[in-house]
């Protein structure tokens, strides 16, 4: 590993801490970002000779703060009427030393930094782009590539998001316990979206987008280190790890999606599964259930099954039932029906989803699952109609291929039982 790559990892790991503290000092994303950039430049000059400091984040905060204050002073000199009180404010900030800072001191700063990126007025894609830029430090080009848009378009998107955030007046006081848990929930939702941006990508984009999954997991672990007793954050981290563990098995050599039941489980990442499972166990001990815990528990049950037929569908059916009560949604019911079909048969599953026909009529998976249930019940003509509808709604060629295979099976004399979606 070259020195620069080595220092790069140290800078990347210190970035959330340093950016969060600089944002608190300057209360402006652009100033904080410039201060951090400047500190990084100086680190690249001085660290190769002197070695990285023991507390890289504290070093970067100190150097970045001083650099930004110098810049403000220079700017003031060029202006006719200096605003004295503003300068003296900054001098006070300079006087306070950044000696040894514990994670606990950074806790609310980093949460605020993440929260700033999730302003409710920002559409989800802008929240994610802003978090990747500000917190993770990905370049505009990297983010643009991940979102499959031009560099200019992404630059504009980030600039617009920053402008909106600047007007949002996020509170800089230490948050109350209620505010803190609200912020945590909003940030968790954003990290889940970020992960899904990477996860739902096809194989063709997997290279540039897989980085989104890694980044979501990294930020989740960071959040969990700051809030080590939050069962929902444990569970979200577990959920991402357990899903990411299947990454290598999710696509075949031709780039088609491989369904969960058909994946080569030898390709699943055992280390990520072990970590995810440990976090689920830890979370459930708290006996404060929540939606991420239920979803992580479902993912853990899939991960634990060495063969598809070992899957504990009865437990998964119950867990989806719990999720339905916490977060009622037709999608959750649809997922539950897939589990219910294994436990209670296709008739029960079909009864469960028929009432959703209105809400999910434009949803690929609804018609795919319905077709699969109908085949099992021997209602082949209805199944064919459902699959035709599914193909028309397929979002990717891989989804269409999967349905076409179902139609081929339908055309063959002995119908095979096969359902199950997602990968």
């Amino acid at each position: 590993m070259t020195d620069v790559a080595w220092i790069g990892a140290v800078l990347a790991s210190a970035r959330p801490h340093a950016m969060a503290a600089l944002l608190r000092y300057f209360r402006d994303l652009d100033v904080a970002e410039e201060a951090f950039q400047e500190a990084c430049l100086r680190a690249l000059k001085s660290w190769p000779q002197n070695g990285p400091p023991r507390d890289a984040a504290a070093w970067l905060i100190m150097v970045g703060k001083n650099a930004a204050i110098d810049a403000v002073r220079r700017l003031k000199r060029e202006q006719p009427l200096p605003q004295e009180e503003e300068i003296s404010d900054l001098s006070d900030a300079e006087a306070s030393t950044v000696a040894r800072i514990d994670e606990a001191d950074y806790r609310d700063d980093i949460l605020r930094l993440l929260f700033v990126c999730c302003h409710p007025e920002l559409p989800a894609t802008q929240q994610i782009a802003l978090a990747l830029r500000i917190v993770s430090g990905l370049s505009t080009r990297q983010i643009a590539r991940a979102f499959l848009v031009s560099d200019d378009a992404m630059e504009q998107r980030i600039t617009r998001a920053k402008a909106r955030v600047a007007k949002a007046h996020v509170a800089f006081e230490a948050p109350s316990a209620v505010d803190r848990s609200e912020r945590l929930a909003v940030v968790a939702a954003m990290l889940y979206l970020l992960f899904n941006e990477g996860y739902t990508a096809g194989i063709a984009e997997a290279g540039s987008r897989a980085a989104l999954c890694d980044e979501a997991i990294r930020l989740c672990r960071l959040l969990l280190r700051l809030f080590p007793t939050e069962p929902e954050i444990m569970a979200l981290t577990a959920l991402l790890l357990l899903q990411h563990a299947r990454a290598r098995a999710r696509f075949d050599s031709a780039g088609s999606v491989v369904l969960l039941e058909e994946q080569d489980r030898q390709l699943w990442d055992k280390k990520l599964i072990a970590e995810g499972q440990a976090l689920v166990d830890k979370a459930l001990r708290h006996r404060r259930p929540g939606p991420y815990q239920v979803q992580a528990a479902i993912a853990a049950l899939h991960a634990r099954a060495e063969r598809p037929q070992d899957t504990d569908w009865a437990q998964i059916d119950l867990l989806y039932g719990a999720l339905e009560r916490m977060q009622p949604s037709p999608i959750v019911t649809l997922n539950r029906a897939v589990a219910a079909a294994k436990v209670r048969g296709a008739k029960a599953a079909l009864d469960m989803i028929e009432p959703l026909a209105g809400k999910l009529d434009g949803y690929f998976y609804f018609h795919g699952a319905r077709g699969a249930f109908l085949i099992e019940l021997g209602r082949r003509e209805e199944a064919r109609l459902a699959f035709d509808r599914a193909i028309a709604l397929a979002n990717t060629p891989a989804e269409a291929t999967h349905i076409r295979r179902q139609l081929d099976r339908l055309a063959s004399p002995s119908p095979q039982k096969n359902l199950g979606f997602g990968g």
Partner: protein
Amino acid sequence: MQYAILCYHDENVVCAWSKQQDDAVMARLAVVQEKLARQGKLGPVVRLLPTTAATTLRKDREPPLVIDGPFAETKEQLLGFYLVDCASLEEALEIARELAAANPGGAYEIRPVGVFNPGSASA
């Protein structure tokens, strides 16, 4: 004499390594480990999962208290350890230096082993 080489590093930094960087470090460490194994000096090698997956049992009270996270909140965390068999501290330090060249950053604590029971759980 048996020594434990306890590996400490800032977990935030190790988590920021790319897959390629991590693989490269592991490959370089494997070279050192193979050499030690051939010399009959290498005992068990353990890499621990992140401290976020850790749970601590405080047993200085009754009943013991279960706490989320690692025992100590420190800048650098215990991320793994090696057990090596060598003639002297100097030799143990030499091994640690070789491992360090393959895996820079953080610190190794070289600690003589008092009791070693190889156990029976499968690896």
